């Protein structure tokens, strides 16, 4: 605590040289559920930011990612009187009332890594990792480059109702159907592994059995891509079937190192937390404004613009991970 105080005081002294006794902003991040490694990295971004700027950070999350499971956590934080609530919402509409009562008390509500689509008026701003409308096209280009833009590809997704994945899959279908660059590629199947390793594995095995000429598999989900890579590794067919998709470098490092996977993509969940805490503190101390078109500087990320719908992207395109750069990422 003392160390923290010292660091923040010194930082504040060094930066503003006058406002050293300004109170720290209390930020809470409400995750989807506990035990999800994706959010460990995102949370670390908040933690590291609050080491250098004037904020206190707390992470809370329910045990399960159900629509209403975050409500008691939100109510407790409102009672506690936090300044900023950042949340990865489990439902696009179940949280509206709680958000409203938080904002009546002057609490800033930011949705992070996922938005309450259709109910945007109930939050102040949203911080999304990248422009989701480009993910589908980027993933098709990724698999295309691995298979020489020719042959059968399949998709191994999460659950049938996962909204983000379904949006990206739609983009993949449109890209492959309309862009002449991919005219020699066919999307033969879309299967769902429910983000369980067992089920993702049986679905992947079934893809290989049903489509013996399969050249590539896109798994736009962290559990699915690891399961698909494990099947290919275990069968020793990395030369014939290219696995790619969206994955965490920490989960995929082994597969990249042993040549099972040539490349995959994601954004930095860490940067979402880093950006969200800088934005929250900036809004509270008045150095940033939450208006469409406004810009602000975030250390390490450069100039950030607030887009239509008070939506902020931490990066403009997906990051591609391969053998050359995977060791540079520790999430």
């Amino acid at each position: 605590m003392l160390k923290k105080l010292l660091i923040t005081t010194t930082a504040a002294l060094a930066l503003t040289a006058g406002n050293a006794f300004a109170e720290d902003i209390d930020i809470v991040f409400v995750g989807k559920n506990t035990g999800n490694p994706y959010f460990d990295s995102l949370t670390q971004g908040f933690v590291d930011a609050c080491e250098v700027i004037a904020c206190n950070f707390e992470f809370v999350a329910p045990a399960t990612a159900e629509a209403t499971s975050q409500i008691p956590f939100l109510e407790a934080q409102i009672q506690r009187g936090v300044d900023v609530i950042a949340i990865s919402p489990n439902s696009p509409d179940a949280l509206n009332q709680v958000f409203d009562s938080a904002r009546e008390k002057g609490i800033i509500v930011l949705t992070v890594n996922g938005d309450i689509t259709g109910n945007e008026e109930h939050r102040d701003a949203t911080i999304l990792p990248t422009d989701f409308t480009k993910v589908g096209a980027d993933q098709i280009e990724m698999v295309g480059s691995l298979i020489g833009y020719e042959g059968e590809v399949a998709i191994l997704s999460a659950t049938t109702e996962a909204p983000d994945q379904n949006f990206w899959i739609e983009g993949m279908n449109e890209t492959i159907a309309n862009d002449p660059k991919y005219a020699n590629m066919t999307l033969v199947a879309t299967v769902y592994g429910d983000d369980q390793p067992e089920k993702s594995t049986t679905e992947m095995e079934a893809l290989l059995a049903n489509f013996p000429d399969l050249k590539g598999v896109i798994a736009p989900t962290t559990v699915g891509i690891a399961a698909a890579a494990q099947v290919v590794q275990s069968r020793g067919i990395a030369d014939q079937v290219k696995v790619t998709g969206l994955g965490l470098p920490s989960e995929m490092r082994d597969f990249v190192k042993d040549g099972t996977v040539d490349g995959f993509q994601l954004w930095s969940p860490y940067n979402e937390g880093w950006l969200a805490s800088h934005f929250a503190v900036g809004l509270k101390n008045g150095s940033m404004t939450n208006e469409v078109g406004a810009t602000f500087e975030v250390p390490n990320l450069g100039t950030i613009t607030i887009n239509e719908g008070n939506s902020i992207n931490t990066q403009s395109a997906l990051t591609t991970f391969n053998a050359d750069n995977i060791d540079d990422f520790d999430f």
Partner: protein
Amino acid sequence: MNLVRNILFRREAGILVMIVLFCIAVGLYKPQFLTGQSLRIILLLTPLIMIGAMAQMLVLVGRHVDLSIGSMLGFSAMVVGLMYREFPDLWWVIGFPIAIATGAVLGIFNGLLVTIFKLPSIIVTLGTLSLYRGLTFIISDARQINRSDIPSELKLMSRTSPVFDIPWIILIAFGIALMTYVIARHTQLGRQIYALGSNPEAAPLRGIDVTKVTLVVFALSGALSGLAGILYASRWGFVNPSNTGAGFEFQVIAAVVIGGVSINGGVGTVMGTVLGVLLLGCVAAALPLLGIPGSTQNAIYGSVILIALLIDRSVRQRGAASISRGGA
């Protein structure tokens, strides 16, 4: 008793016939199902369930049930995972005795609650199902043990072995089945478990130490769940506080009941249980191959279990009838 044994034998033959018919039926639509590759997939799907099913068979034969196996699996896996992460220099094989011992301690705790307080095992283990899962969250700080923290030697056990390249975890699973067969058929303990489950009132009169036998059964269930825990880390390369072992009890009890083990105690064989596990494995591997979507797969799983329960019921009625006819 011969009549009962005959019926049971027919029951096992019945499951075998079901497996063969099922595979042929699937093979007619999808010839690739009848290949060595499919056998490998099925065998790699089932080792954890096989180990859990052996323990659960003994528990059910003793007229108890252990619902906490998935949480014991998760807790033991987490203990070992934390050890690998915090002490990467330790010899990785140490993880096996630690996982098994951790599970055994949790199992003995179940057994003590059941024997000392005379509580029904279904209630006790329903409680510890949540308790052990909660403890898993606490010791791990709700964080996953990542692939990079699991020793590669351990992960390699799920891919190969010196014995015809059959992955170690398959060999271990069948080794546990063999061990359970020996316990059930050739030891005093095994006979005592069957006697206890057949007639709990008469067992102490025959000089059976009911407390000791019950404790041993629950300790075994915990120890084998612990073994399944470290093998989970081997097979999937990570340990997650909420996912690892979740729903394991459902799969295992389903396999055991399909294998003809009676939930009323006293009846069950290792061969039947092995076949029950393999039948579930065949179904799990075939459904995606047939292109049946995930939502429907759950309904089909449930139907298979219900059909097995109905068969179980009719077998027990016929068995009871034959015993009373025989005057045994």
